[in-house]
């Protein structure tokens, strides 16, 4: 066994490993060189001619999320069945069907620049902001969406504060024997000065559940951007999209480049214009993530028009579960902007008793309200309704 050969000789299985790594990358897994080397090493310890051994060597070294196992399985089957001769680039099959119509979301920057020139550009950039703040997202032009990006970049999204269990030095609070005694060392064992510490405050986790169904499509674009601004600003933030199924999109939104992030997120979200079964989506969230800890003490933001194609009693039951876990639930419903709107219809009426803050989220100004509500550490409204 090549014990000491760690860094020197290339593992004999390296070629095959690299080839398989390429297949996986083509399928969308993040497989770095270090992982591929690890895979090659693992193969050496097993019997690479045996299908199961080869399979597990890769499962253990190349995959590190249960979500990726399915992709890995498919890629492995393909690779093994073809005897390692997979044309990698050729089969970039579109595993993700629906995309946000790109031209409307992200106008190439050049066109924006071209339309504007000289003084007018300055005018265009500054004057419309006030107008845009109150304009309904559904009426936005592509140029205005580009402007929205810039505006969102300044919007800080950070959860309400809570006390962490981590302690930090403070002028008063709990006695800190460690630092006191440490100080005493310097003064001949006499504790001249006493030190204290107290619990650090930390922003709460913010979890966004974004309905991306057809009925929300004119708003979900802006909201996805809002999510991206939040994730990119480094807040403790998790994002999920709710459509016909629940999809975690935190990772897709975590890049600094908004256009790429949106493209990736729209890739991850398969059901941009299917119907929503809200209750099922919320249930899936609570089952898979919320109850295990993600929702505990968190600020939950639900973006949805409350139009549930499923059974609304499921939604009510699940919202109740969620409200027992969460610190606060904020529901953002663009329909609320219409003066005549009353939250009487099915899903919304069922969910509302468990909602602490109910907002509209149809324009930039209301997104600002949302950012404020998220950061607000005061107690819940006792009646659990509209506080705007």
């Amino acid at each position, binding site marked *: 066994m090549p014990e000491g050969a760690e860094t020197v000789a290339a593992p004999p299985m390296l070629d095959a490993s690299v080839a398989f790594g390429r297949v996986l990358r083509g399928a969308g897994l993040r497989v770095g060189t270090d992982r591929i080397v690890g895979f090659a090493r*693992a193969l050496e310890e097993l019997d690479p001619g045996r299908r*199961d051994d080869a399979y597990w060597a890769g499962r253990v*070294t190349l995959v590190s999320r249960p979500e990726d196992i399915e992709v890995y399985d498919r890629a492995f089957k393909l690779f093994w069945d073809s005897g390692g001769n997979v044309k990698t680039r050729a089969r970039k099959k579109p595993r993700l069907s629906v995309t946000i119509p790109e031209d409307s979301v992200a106008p190439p920057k050049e066109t924006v620049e071209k339309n504007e020139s000289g003084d007018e550009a300055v005018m265009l950039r500054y004057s419309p902001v006030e107008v845009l703040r109150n304009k309904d997202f559904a009426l936005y032009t592509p140029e205005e969406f580009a402007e929205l990006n810039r505006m969102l970049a300044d919007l800080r999204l950070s959860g309400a504060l809570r006390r962490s269990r981590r302690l930090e030095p403070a002028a008063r609070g709990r006695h800190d024997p460690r630092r006191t005694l440490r100080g005493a060392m310097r003064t001949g064992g006499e504790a001249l000065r006493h030190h204290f510490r107290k619990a650090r405050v930390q922003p709460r986790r913010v979890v966004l559940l974004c309905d991306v169904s057809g009925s929300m499509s004119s708003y979900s674009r802006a909201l996805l951007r809002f999510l991206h601004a939040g994730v990119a600003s480094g807040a403790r933030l998790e994002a999920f999209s709710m459509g016909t199924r629940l999809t975690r999109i935190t990772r897709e939104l975590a890049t600094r480049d908004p256009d790429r992030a949106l493209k990736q997120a729209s890739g991850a979200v398969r059901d941009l214009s299917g119907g929503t079964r809200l209750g099922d989506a919320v249930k899936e969230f609570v089952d898979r993530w919320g109850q295990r*800890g993600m929702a505990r003490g968190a600020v939950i933001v639900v973006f949805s028009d409350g139009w549930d194609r499923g059974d609304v009693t499921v939604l009510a039951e699940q919202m109740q579960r969620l409200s027992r876990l969460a610190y606060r639930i904020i529901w953002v419903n663009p329909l609320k902007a219409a003066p005549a709107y009353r939250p009487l219809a099915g899903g919304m009426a069922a969910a509302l008793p468990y909602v602490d803050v109910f907002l509209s989220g149809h324009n930039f100004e209301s997104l600002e309200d949302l950012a404020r509500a998220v950061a607000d550490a005061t107690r819940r409204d006792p009646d659990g309704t509209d506080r705007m």
Partner: protein
Amino acid sequence: MSEGPNGRRGALPSGVSLSEDLRKRLRKSDYLADEGLATAIFLALKLGRPLFLEGEAGVGKTEVAKVLSRILDTPLIRLQCYEGIDVYQAVYEWDYARQLLHIRATEALGGGDRESLEKDLYNREFLVSRPLLQALEHQGPMPPVLLIDEVDRADDEFEAFLLEILSDFAVTIPELGTVVAERPPVAILTSNRTREVHDALKRRCLYHYIEHPSFEREVEILRLRVPEAEEILARQVAAATERMRAMDLYKPPGVAETLDWTEALVALGAKKLDESFVQATLGSVLKYREDHQRAKMMNLMDMVVGLESGGG
């Protein structure tokens, strides 16, 4: 303290050279691993890399570390993570109270210049080692098993620190110098996925996701771990849990709950399931009131009691 960083890697028990051997050895110690898990453990031991285990609560993640310490005949050192855990709780801490006493004692004896006093004070004997340091300092024919439990509960700062320790198996104590593990400990990390652990940390590790066992394997596990249970009872319990897992519960039972349940049934003298036994013991498998109601609604009792011989 040793010269080279981590001289010899790998820590297979003697007589084990294939993952199949290891699987048999695990079985002999009452742990039934499927091929994937056995291979993952085998590679972790052989390559000397940490093993990162994820899976539903109660599928036996922590158990892996325990059984490894039995097989390797080496201590199990456990670090339970929680929010706010820091270096002083995980690695080392100076024993300030004893240091102070030492100063006083030296003074009282009228002794010692300042320099030698300080040397005395920051001496190994005043250092309290916490789990991670214990694991690095362990001396013995086999490296210890280091269980870092529920990493997902610790915060980012600590994760970054773990990353450092798990890549070099060394830690620096400013007053003393660097402690390097002679042989890297067998590190097992577990996570319940309350949050996603950073990629960088996962990359250092081999990864395995533990699923609920199949019906046959669960029966086997029950027979192995609760030998007093009748075959029929074990099959019925396994069949019932399998159904519960498919039932869309808030907290589907894991193997740990199945074992608890079987033990509870055996304690009550059950030879096989009947309605009153199920009534009396359901609380050891299902931990939510809503889940109990659902089980009742779905006529769990009828289904289970009808399962004379069990069956998947």
